[in-house]
């Protein structure tokens, strides 16, 4: 089974063979990978002992190791093929969802606006704090589902950012 893992723009081609052999970019590797609890893993590789938290996110995997978070995408052969056909791997999600229930204090964009990554789109009040919800990617706002003064549930889609029309 062949996979490609992408972290920080680095590609690792990893193959897992039926006999349990593992290679990275063609070179054999030994690794002891163990699930300790849900989402928590212990890895021993060349004596180095590491503890990892692996969680799934909208755009791939979030891996926490030594206090640092890594965004990782793992593609198998089929996904790789599809991604290549589409001209690239899946980009960050454009859906802005409410991370908790709360009150919409302000909506800062309208449908059609071009936004940049990190731009504040909505202000949501919850836990007595005003939280700025930001765009995870650049693009054009294709949908605004809420307005000022509205209360929203956790997980509600508030804004959708789509591709900028070419």
């Amino acid at each position, binding site marked *: *089974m062949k*996979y490609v*893992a992408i*972290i*920080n723009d*680095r590609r*690792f081609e*990893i193959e*897992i063979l039926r006999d*349990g*052999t*593992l290679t*990275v970019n063609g070179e054999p*590797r*030994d*690794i*002891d*990978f*163990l*699930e*300790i*609890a*849900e*989402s*928590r*893993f212990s*890895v021993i*590789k060349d004596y*180095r002992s590491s503890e*990892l*938290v*692996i969680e799934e996110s909208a755009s791939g*995997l*979030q*891996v*926490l*190791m*030594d*206090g*640092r978070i*890594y965004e*990782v995408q*793992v593609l*198998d052969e089929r996904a790789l093929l599809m991604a290549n056909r589409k001209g690239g791997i899946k980009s960050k999600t454009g859906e802005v969802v409410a*991370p*908790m*229930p*709360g009150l919409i*204090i302000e909506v800062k964009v309208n449908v059609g606006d071009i936004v940049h990554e990190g731009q504040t789109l909505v202000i949501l*009040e*919850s*836990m*007595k*704090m*005003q*939280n*700025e*919800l*930001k765009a995870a990617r650049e693009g054009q706002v294709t949908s605004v589902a809420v307005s000022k003064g509205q209360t929203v549930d*956790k997980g509600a889609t508030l804004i959708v950012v789509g591709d900028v029309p070419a």
Partner: protein
Amino acid sequence: MKTPETRNIQKVLVANRGEIAVRIIRACRDVGIATVAVYSDADRTALHTRHADEAVYIGTPPPRESYLRMDKIIEAAKKTGADAIHPGYGFLAENADFAQQVADEGLVFIGPSPQAIATMGDKQSARAAVAKYGVRLIPGTEAGLHDDDIIAAADKIGYPVMVKAAAGGGGKGMRPVHTPEELPAALANARREAESAFGNGEVYIEKLLVGARHIEFQILGDMHGNIVHLGERECSIQRRNQKVVEEAPSPFMDDDLRQKMGEMAIAAAQSVGYYNAGTIECMVDKDRNYYFLEMNTRLQVEHPVTELVTGIDIVKEQIRIARGRRMTPTESVLSPRAWAIECRINAEDPYNNYIPSIGRITTITTPKGPGVRVDSGVFVGYEITPYYDSMIAKLITVGETRNEALLRMRRALSEYIIMGVKTNIPFHINLMNSVSFIAGQFDTRFIEERFSMTTYEQEPTDTDLEIVALASTLYSHRKRQQASQVVAPAKRDTSNWKWVTRWERLRK
């Protein structure tokens, strides 16, 4: 001052929730006093409800329906025969009416006099009280002005200014404003936030000192007229005007400054005939000029760092003082015997603009071993709701030196695992690795202006990346296998995947 009566305290009602309620229950238990918890619907399973000897239900989750209901809390004390009430911090801790009502009902309020709370709780009277003692004040306006008057005052004081809530605390209702154009909107936002948090939308402004530190002095006074300070705490590591890391002593402090600021702090407390634990908050600019900010007439979130460097249990001293006895310390602490750091563990996502995280805690591994203290109100199965503050625990480490405390904090953070909600533990790990923090070079704007979760002091090594790549791939491979029902048989109950490991090679 006449000799106070000794008052009997056999059973304390704790009018609070979360880690501080647990902390107070523990202190009571440590001196053999029975405890009563109060709880809202959201807190039936909370640790304070379960750890107290008795627990009384007081209403629905919104604080104004439960933890802010003076009538229900006093009724709960009567029903259970409690003879004293400890308010903790927040909620009713700085409400002079509550302190007065408690006293009127013949109960002991474990805190200062209602007069001291009232004087220090009102910005104007607080400034007037301390000014007589020659305490330096930050230029600013009084509270209760109309926006137009505030805007005019800001021009006189000069920008930048800080908008603050009159009833404030915990950074709520606060806004830094750098230009006249921003001020009207900032006032409106601050008023709205203050109204929502405190039921009081009054705001005022103060000159914003640039490059300044937030340093505070812990005060302890008894009813026999004794007042001492227990040294300072460095609280400049803040985000959105909320403290996230505190330490004692301050790396900025020297003996001379401690002496002078300590005297000022005692004078400020004396101005209101203070007894109980209290805190004098100050701003200190680069040139070591210090200004009185406000006095908190209650236990502070960050009191453990002072406890660890002085050996004094501040909550026990509060109880002792409320009983009318002489407090234990007889003189101010001019040389702390250790160094302590506290990290506030918040349910929030440092990788996503510190958005509060709600949900159920599925796993906790608490750091342990020498020099580590954890004050926490949560447990596996605890549900973090949007009703209350996002702070779920405090991690405190102590060492002989700042460096030892810091290394212990790094170690303790790396041991601390909380799953089910996002926490700011990665933020703290990053901070403990930042050169500026290690060097003690920071001011109140450090986190917002010169710190980031994505720039690290060191790039990950190739080995780091390869381990992450391999682990992620094996994780995905496993998920795939599970999806197609071809699950590798687990050797032990924990699922174990080894690829070309020592054992397998040996067995080949």
